[in-house]
């Protein structure tokens, strides 16, 4: 097994004249909970999409689980779980049907699917509502269901792209607790978030990305100490400025 679960080496992604990711390099160890932070449009989701094989880097090298994502994408797909930024769940299916659909797409056997389904729905507080159509769910419930879909096949490497957006504090805390459990099980997690408290609380290390460049990479407490501020949010503001950014 490769020493690192995730490796990016000098990765560049251009969309026409726009450079979304500009020479980003970092490595994530197995079992690490890594936070990728940055303002809107900084290049976080583009980076995650390249790690999942959804986007091809313009240049550079990306590997996940020791496999070259571009050349061995089929192998990568089997052991990554992705909770995308969009609340991508089928509204016309029930929660249970959504979960079973994805379990079948990963070709889980019936017993494994049943156990994983029941456990995940319970952990994320969706058991009671599992039989209802998703269109009736609140935004927070849909986000939690999206996490269940990402984890149904028990992936070793998990990409969570802003998983707690739109959740109430209780739900967010429950997801945090669950992420800690996953880490305890030895899962590797790459988390993108705008909630600095979330990153500071959960992540072993964080990388701050801005205008497509990685501008900081360290453990949250080291970054706080290095910049002489009180918390990660102040580090973030100090490094990225106060100007409001919009997604392009």
């Amino acid at each position, binding site marked *: 097994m490769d020493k690192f679960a995730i490796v990016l080496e000098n990765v560049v992604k251009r969309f026409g004249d726009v450079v979304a990711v500009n020479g980003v390099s970092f490595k994530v160890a197995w079992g690490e909970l890594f936070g990728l932070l940055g303002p809107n449009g900084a290049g976080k989701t583009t980076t995650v999409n390249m790690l999942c094989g959804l986007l091809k880097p313009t240049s550079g090298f990306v590997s996940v689980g020791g496999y070259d994502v571009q050349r061995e994408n089929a192998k990568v*797909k*089997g052991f990554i779980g992705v909770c995308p930024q*969009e609340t991508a769940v089928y509204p016309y*299916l029930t929660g249970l049907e959504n979960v079973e*659909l994805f379990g*079948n797409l990963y*070709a889980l056997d019936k017993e494994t699917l049943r156990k994983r389904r029941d456990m995940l729905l319970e952990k994320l507080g969706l058991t009671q509502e599992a039989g209802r159509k998703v269109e009736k769910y609140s935004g927070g419930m849909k986000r939690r269901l999206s996490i269940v879909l990402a984890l149904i096949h028990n992936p070793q490497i998990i990409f969570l792209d802003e998983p707690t957006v739109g959740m109430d504090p209780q739900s967010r805390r429950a997801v945090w607790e669950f992420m800690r459990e996953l880490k305890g099980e030895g899962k590797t997690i790459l988390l993108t978030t705008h909630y600095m408290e979330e990153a500071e609380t959960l992540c072993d290390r964080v990388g701050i990305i801005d205008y497509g460049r990685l501008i900081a990479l360290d453990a949250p407490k080291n970054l706080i100490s290095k910049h002489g501020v009180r918390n990660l949010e102040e580090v973030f503001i100090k490094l990225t400025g106060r100007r409001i950014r919009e997604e392009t």
Partner: protein
Amino acid sequence: MNFRRINALAKKELKKTFREPAILFMIILFPIVFVLTFGVSFGGLGGSQPTYHVGVVNMDSAGSEGLSQAFIEAMANTKLLHVQIYADNHTAQDALSQGKIQAVVIIPADFSQSLNSYHAAPNNPGSWINATVMLYLDKGSIFATQAVPPIIQNVLAAFLSRKAAPSPVNVEISSLIEARRFSTFEFMAPGMFTFASIFLIMMVAQSFTQDRENGMLKRIRITPITPAEFITSQVLSYMFIALIQAVLVFAAAYLMGFRPAVNFYAYLLAFILILIFSLSNVGFGLITATVSKTSGAATGISFLFILPQLFLGTFVGSSLSSTAQTVGRFVPSYYVTDALTSLFLRGASITSPTIIFDFGIVTLSCFAILAIGIILYAKCFKI
């Protein structure tokens, strides 16, 4: 191919179909295309008079010297009938059952004899030798059954220079008793089977654009499902929907009195044709989804494919101008409706050349359209 994945996605697609009342109409493009297509279809663009193809079997014992030749010329001179001579009744009936001609006129052996007897004593009906011209009509064409008999009657009356009865030569419409049993609805029914499936174009286009909009396509791409499995699941689910549509339309038509006297194989072939036809609708849906940025736009753009298929190739097509009928030969639905009409109304055999020709055209065109749709969509959005 993992059939569990295919089955899971196909089931999902079916659940969506039955749970979402999602048909929205484009408010600008729809009327424009509707008016244009309607204009071409019913406006008589090209202005030509309708012509009916009539097969003639001349059994007149007087041969080429007989008066029957003059009668045939008189029919052709009307400009309303395009006359084609057949050697025997069997060949002519075969052409009729395949929709190649719209009527068969059988000139009897005693035709000249009858006319000669009439000319010898025009005012003495008692001395006439009576003869009967048999007329077989295309039971699949409401227009042929209504238009051809009076034309023949008028030609004969003019030929005899006799407008009022009695007449030495009568026209007996052999299939008229049967033809009259068909209501307008029954004439339209074959097109209705085709009609229902055409709206799959909109469903497919909406489904693919919606999945793209809400991130589901991206999410599916992250799973181990292969592009072939994904496309297969979609095609199978829409074929199943087309089958359900066909069954429901047929059941409704049956309730309304549409009960064609055909065997099991004719029904089987009809359903197979509709299933194959649904492939082209999936293909057109994918093409629509490729060029549409949103599901709303997909709804409107889908009518660019729906309306020509609808007006040029289904039951509406039975009353089209000759120009529109020619254009109709470029849409797959035309051949489906033609084959179904031949099967159900004309009583054509499933192995008759017309059916085989229609089946071949439908199969080739539908697979080609599906392939184009898949290639375009995959190229733009990486299934």
